[in-house]
């Protein structure tokens, strides 16, 4: 157990700690940022107007969480928060594969044939994972992370409550709804292992006391996910193995490259513009 690092300045004075902390912050920031971007692509396309309001609000809150992590990176001297979000190359992103998957076929401006079941299932299980990860930060050796995780945890509960209404109703509805949710769960499960992988920095995260181990994180998630499966009347699938390739080390799909190019297009035109 490492001693508690109370401030950004203290962290900056400890290169090994700073390295590990920076890597972890990028993983958390990029997960939230890219999923929030996927959420923003749904704007105007959700099944009904109230869902559109709710989904946008949650995407915005999730993006706000990403901003907070990027700002911590800025405070640590890594770079300007806006630049970190919008000027990095796609291979420098450290998000999990699950969050970069597209919403469906087509594009949000043209023929969007997005999959609502996939949106519900992905956001719900990402929500449970995020709760587990925030819990795994509650004894972090970096005090600002402890404070931030406690705050986010309260907000995240509302996100999960929202998606739970959808998944429980659809999974227990008619055959078509149940089939669609079942298929979406299968697809999410193929990528699920990408969330738990800490990548090549994993050992350092734990050594520096920043976050609990991958195994402890998985266990926290498994408890929540098993309850969710029971609520949907699904048999528990078990947790998949971590994938061989991982976004935590910069391995991504063309979908992420396209997403980063789209989301940063305007910013890159003139990074010095005031907004």
């Amino acid at each position, binding site marked *: 157990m490492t001693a508690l690092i109370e401030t950004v300045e203290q962290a900056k004075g400890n290169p090994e700690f700073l390295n590990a902390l920076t890597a972890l912050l990028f993983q958390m920031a990029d997960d939230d940022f890219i999923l929030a971007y996927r959420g923003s692509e749904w704007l105007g396309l959700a099944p009904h107007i*109230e*869902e559109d*309001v*709710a*989904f946008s*609000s*949650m995407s*915005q*809150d*999730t*993006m*706000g*969480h990403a*901003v*907070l992590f990027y700002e911590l990176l800025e405070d640590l001297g890594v770079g300007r928060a806006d630049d970190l979000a919008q000027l990095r190359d796609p291979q420098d992103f450290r998000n999990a594969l699950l969050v970069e998957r597209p919403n469906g076929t087509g594009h949000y401006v043209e023929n969007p044939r997005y999959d609502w079941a996939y949106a519900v299932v992905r956001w719900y299980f990402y929500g449970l994972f995020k709760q587990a990860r925030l819990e795994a930060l509650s004894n972090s050796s970096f005090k*600002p992370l402890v*404070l*931030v995780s*406690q*705050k*986010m945890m*309260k*907000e995240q*509960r*509302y996100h999960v*409550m*929202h998606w739970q*209404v959808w998944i429980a109703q659809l999974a227990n509805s008619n055959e078509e709804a149940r089939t669609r949710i079942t298929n979406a769960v299968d697809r999410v499960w193929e990528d699920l292992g990408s969330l738990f992988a800490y990548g090549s920095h994993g050992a350092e995260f734990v050594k520096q006391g920043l976050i609990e181990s991958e195994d402890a994180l998985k266990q926290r998630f498994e408890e929540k996910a098993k309850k969710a499966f029971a609520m949907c009347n699904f048999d528990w699938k078990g947790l998949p193995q971590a994938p061989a390739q991982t976004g935590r080390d910069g391995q991504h799909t063309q979908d992420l490259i396209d997403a980063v190019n789209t989301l940063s297009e305007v910013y890159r035109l003139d990074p010095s513009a005031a907004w």
Partner: protein
Amino acid sequence: MTQALTADIFWELLQEVKDPEIPVISMIEMGMIGKVEVEGGVVTVDVLPTFVGCPAIEIMKKNIVEKLSTVEGVQDVQVNFVFEPAWSSDRITEEGREKLATFGIAPPPKVEVGDLMDVLCPFCNSANIQMDNLFGPAACRSILYCNDCKNPFEAIKPI
């Protein structure tokens, strides 16, 4: 004669800085001002965000800086967003709760996260209400419906 700069002066001024999305209520009444410190001509204000992802945060910062900079002798206004203590809906003052209701927003129930239904319709005080949408136009609010006066209304989430 210039007056001595004390924190009290700025607390009084902050009463005039309203929540950008709910202009009847001040940031003090929302429980969002944690601390005000004055050192020389530098005023430091700790602000507690309601939701981390609230897009109004930057506007609040700007409004605070503008308002406090009007005081003679102030050289700089620093606004820090802090999470210790974390904002909680229990921090909203009694006046704040009343003002929210007059604006058509039910004040948050004083309960744990998750128990949302325990609010009264801000228009007719009925308890015969239902949750329509957990996430309203802002992350901190939900949309409910009053089964008696048939009005939709918003409520601040307990957090």
